[in-house]
């Protein structure tokens, strides 16, 4: 649950999570084991195809939503179910209270339902004097603790056996040992007595099949089967997004859902309920059964050209499982009721901007969620878009506004960067790090030494660089991005040498500016579009085969976001697509296009490892190219654990949430140090900044370089 009033309070809450060592350890172990079991569960299949099948099936529902609802209703009613539509949470709760009243139900048992969490159903029922018992073990535990879930699939993952033992001691009035087997048995017996006396059962539904009027429930414990069988009344509450046309569509989702959620091939139970089943304790031996189909913002979402893809969400929870921020702070801080990447989005639609405004900023844009999503939803983009909407409505905070203003004007921006060089003079050390941080703003940035702005940016050096490429095999336009231009021009120079040695001619259009990603991250949509336009224009007249950038984030942003940002005018879009088609990251170019091999290098066998930037491995799908190049260059390559997990830089994220950024970084550096590497390479200047700063703080001797630098230094001349 999110009750923080402002970013400051929210950050304080997160610090508490960071200090919770049990939570940290539990989520760490989970992050690693989840990946392994998921990979096993999908081993026999083409995951991308299965995800595409889910996306396709769900997308097909959107234009037919109303029609499918009517079909579902008709078929379910023909089989004896009463189908209700609820436009919002209050209406749904009121319907259920009413059913309880009409049937004289006093004691209610529930199986797990995120939708019921969404409507805060338990509160409503209790307010009307009804006794509600959650029967899913995790849900029961958090109900007894008066907490919300901290994960969509494992609601009590934040609690230890000791806490559960103490809790059960209170419940049973007898001392319970912290022994998981025994605690589960205690729950079995205690809850069985609740099943026996219940008047009404409430469940959610994973599928609502229009063709047959059937609901499908996907569970592991078996409680949902008892909930739907023992009491004479059954109410199933489901979002309208659970509608699917046919059983086959439901089976497509079922194929992915458990595998993606917990790495199980299938859950222990999948229950298909059609109509008013036999119930021997009911007066006419038939179950009194109700389906409540909930809107609560979903229909509006379905109409939205961007957000309608949220309908593909099958609530598998995987986007939390892989989220580095979730891993650090847990679900109570990374969501309101829905957790993880999808939680940041749903909170806005279901619970309003007030609950969403802080948490939505807590995304590092690493794309891990997008990569794992069972429905192929572009989660990071939607999260940013929610951020934009909130800011546009509630006003932009000052730093964000300033950044927008400055970046809109390239010359002003670059002048500021140039003068920053003078501003930092008195405090800059002579080793390229600022000794003290000049700005109050960066107070908590102390965990890593920040770099200084270079004497001369790459754009000034470029004209002085000699290119004697006679008959170039290729022409390349260099896109530097701000960090390489103004902070690490030497990385650009290294790439320049390497390319020149490979007979490549280069240009550097001076009108290029920041790629615009930081603006996007700050929720400045308008300026982000302006800057994109500037860059497309800057390269328009260049006669080049490729546009190469050494920054994975720039590359991914140029390639994937520009066509979206500049989509409204077909003429401009055409130019944009011509531009993006040429964009390529450094390693892919050096490896796939230039084809650099062992014979091109004189290696020295130094132990080296690689940090894979988020926007390289997930954003661009590049995995092998940099590693192959490092090996070819004659370095002793050592793969680090979790080499594709975010380093915590995330651009503006590290300024907003320094304590989280630090925690990410520490984990990363521990893994790097474990390899015994002397050189740490990566393909993004932002990551270099983060990693260099962190290692410097540790007093480590490990050298951090852009891959281009390591390759250029080992390139044999004259071939």
């Amino acid at each position, binding site marked *: 649950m999110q009750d923080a009033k402002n970013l400051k309070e929210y950050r304080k809450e997160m610090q508490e999570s960071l200090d919770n060592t049990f939570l940290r350890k539990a989520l760490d172990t989970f992050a690693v084991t989840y990946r392994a079991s998921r990979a096993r569960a999908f081993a026999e299949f083409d995951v991308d195809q299965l995800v595409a099948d889910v996306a396709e099936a769900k997308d097909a529902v959107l234009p037919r939503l109303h029609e499918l609802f009517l079909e579902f209703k008709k078929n379910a009613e023909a089989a004896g179910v009463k189908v209700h539509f609820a436009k919002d949470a209050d209406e749904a709760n009121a319907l259920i209270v009413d059913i309880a009243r009409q049937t004289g139900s006093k004691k209610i048992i529930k199986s797990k339902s995120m939708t019921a969490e969404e409507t805060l159903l338990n509160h409503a029922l209790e307010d009307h004097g009804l006794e509600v018992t959650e029967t899913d073990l995790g849900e029961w535990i958090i109900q007894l603790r008066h907490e919300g879930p901290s994960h969509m699939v494992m609601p009590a993952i934040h609690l230890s056996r000791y806490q559960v033992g103490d809790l059960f001691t209170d419940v049973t009035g007898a001392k319970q040992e912290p022994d998981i087997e025994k605690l589960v048995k205690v729950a079995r017996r205690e809850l069985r007595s609740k099943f026996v006396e219940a008047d009404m059962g409430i469940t959610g539904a994973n599928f609502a099949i229009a063709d*047959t009027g059937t609901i499908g429930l996907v569970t*592991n414990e*078996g409680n949902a*089967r*008892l909930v739907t069988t023992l009491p004479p009344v059954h109410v199933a509450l489901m979002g309208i997004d659970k509608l699917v046309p046919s059983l086959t569509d439901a*089976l497509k989702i079922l194929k992915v859902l458990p595998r993606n959620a917990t790495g199980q091939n299938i859950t*222990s139970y999948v229950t*298909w309920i059609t109509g008013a089943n036999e119930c021997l304790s009911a007066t006419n031996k038939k179950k009194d059964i109700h389906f409540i189909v909930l809107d609560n913002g979903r229909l509006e979402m379905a109409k939205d050209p961007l957000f309608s893809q949220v309908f593909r969400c099958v609530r598998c929870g995987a986007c939390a499982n892989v989220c580095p921020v979730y891993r650090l702070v847990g679900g109570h801080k990374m969501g309101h009721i829905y957790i993880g990447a999808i939680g940041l989005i749903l909170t806005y639609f279901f619970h309003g901007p007030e609950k969403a405004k802080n948490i939505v900023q807590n995304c590092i844009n690493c794309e891990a969620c997008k990569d794992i999503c069972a429905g192929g939803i572009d989660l990071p983009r939607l999260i940013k878009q929610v951020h934009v909407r909130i800011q546009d409505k509630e006003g932009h905070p000052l730093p964000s506004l300033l950044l927008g203003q400055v970046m809109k004007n390239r010359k002003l921006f670059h002048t500021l960067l140039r003068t920053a060089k003078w501003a930092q003079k008195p405090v800059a050390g002579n080793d390229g790090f600022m000794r003290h941080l000049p700005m109050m703003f960066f107070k908590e940035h102390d965990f890593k030494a920040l770099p200084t702005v270079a004497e001369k940016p790459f754009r000034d050096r470029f004209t002085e660089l000699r290119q004697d490429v006679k008959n170039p095999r290729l022409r390349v336009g260099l896109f530097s991005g701000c960090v390489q231009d103004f902070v690490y021009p030497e990385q650009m120079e290294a790439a320049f040498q390497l390319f020149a040695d490979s007979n490549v001619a280069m240009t550097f259009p001076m009108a290029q500016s920041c790629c615009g990603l930081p603006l996007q991250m700050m929720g400045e949509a308008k300026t982000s579009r302006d800057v994109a336009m500037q860059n497309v224009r800057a390269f328009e007249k260049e006669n080049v085969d490729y546009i190469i950038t050494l920054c994975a984030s720039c590359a991914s942003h140029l390639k994937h976001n520009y066509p979206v940002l500049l989509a409204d005018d077909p003429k401009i879009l055409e130019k944009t697509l011509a531009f993006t088609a040429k964009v390529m990251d450094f390693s892919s170019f050096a490896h796939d296009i230039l084809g650099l091999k062992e014979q091109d290098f004189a290696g020295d066998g130094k132990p080296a490892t690689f940090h894979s930037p988020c926007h390289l491995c997930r954003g661009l799908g590049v995995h092998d190219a940099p590693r192959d190049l490092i090996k070819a260059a004659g370095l002793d390559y050592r793969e680090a654990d979790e080499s594709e997990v975010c380093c915590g830089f995330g651009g503006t994220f590290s300024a907003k949430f320094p304590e989280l950024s630090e925690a990410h970084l520490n984990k990363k550096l521990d893994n790097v140090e474990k390899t015994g590497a002397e050189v740490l390479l990566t393909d993004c200047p932002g990551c270099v900044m983060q990693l260099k700063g962190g290692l410097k703080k540790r007093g480590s001797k490990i050298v951090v370089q852009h891959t281009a630098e390591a390759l250029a230094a080992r390139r044999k001349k004259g071939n």
Partner: protein
Amino acid sequence: MTMILDKDRQTALTSRFSEKARAVSAFVTEVASFDEALAYTVDLCGKQGACRIRISGCEEHLSPPADALCELKQEKIVAAPGLDPVLYDRLLAHCAANGFSCIKSGMRSYLSGIDIGFTVADLAIAETGTLVINCPGEELRLATMLSEYHVCVVHRSTIVEDAFAADQHMLKYLRKTPDYTAFITGASRTADIERVLALGVHGPLELHILLLED
């Protein structure tokens, strides 16, 4: 020739099914006849100790209402609702000879639990090691939920490749309303406390699958 191919295919499906079911801790055994299946069940109840007067969890320190429910069960019980009457009589005879009671209805009198639920699967899905049990009747449903051990006979010929291959059969069930159809894969499980796997949280503690040649 096709006969042989079919046989090979069925053998492959059966071994895949067994492998997947075992992977989720089901016990899979081949039986040559229905009598062998009945003998297995009675043996499980008696020699293997599946049947106990005291039901699992009742040895823990419980609250008074939960404790009181434990008293409901005073005998060793095998339930087989929905079983073919001839087979049921044979099971009944086996149970009587061993001093267990055998029931085919009245499950609601045993809500604290019974020892063994004996069922026959309608279909089985190889890809996931799943049993498909069509159970619109409440007694059969409860037998698969309230039993400590679930023993289920699978005719080899009913094993299909994946859920999609069961689609048409499933639709037959779903359209004959009202309907309740269950996919059952392994024992009831939870990992809600510290993600440690524990079997038998609400449903059966063990699932025994008997593969029957037909």
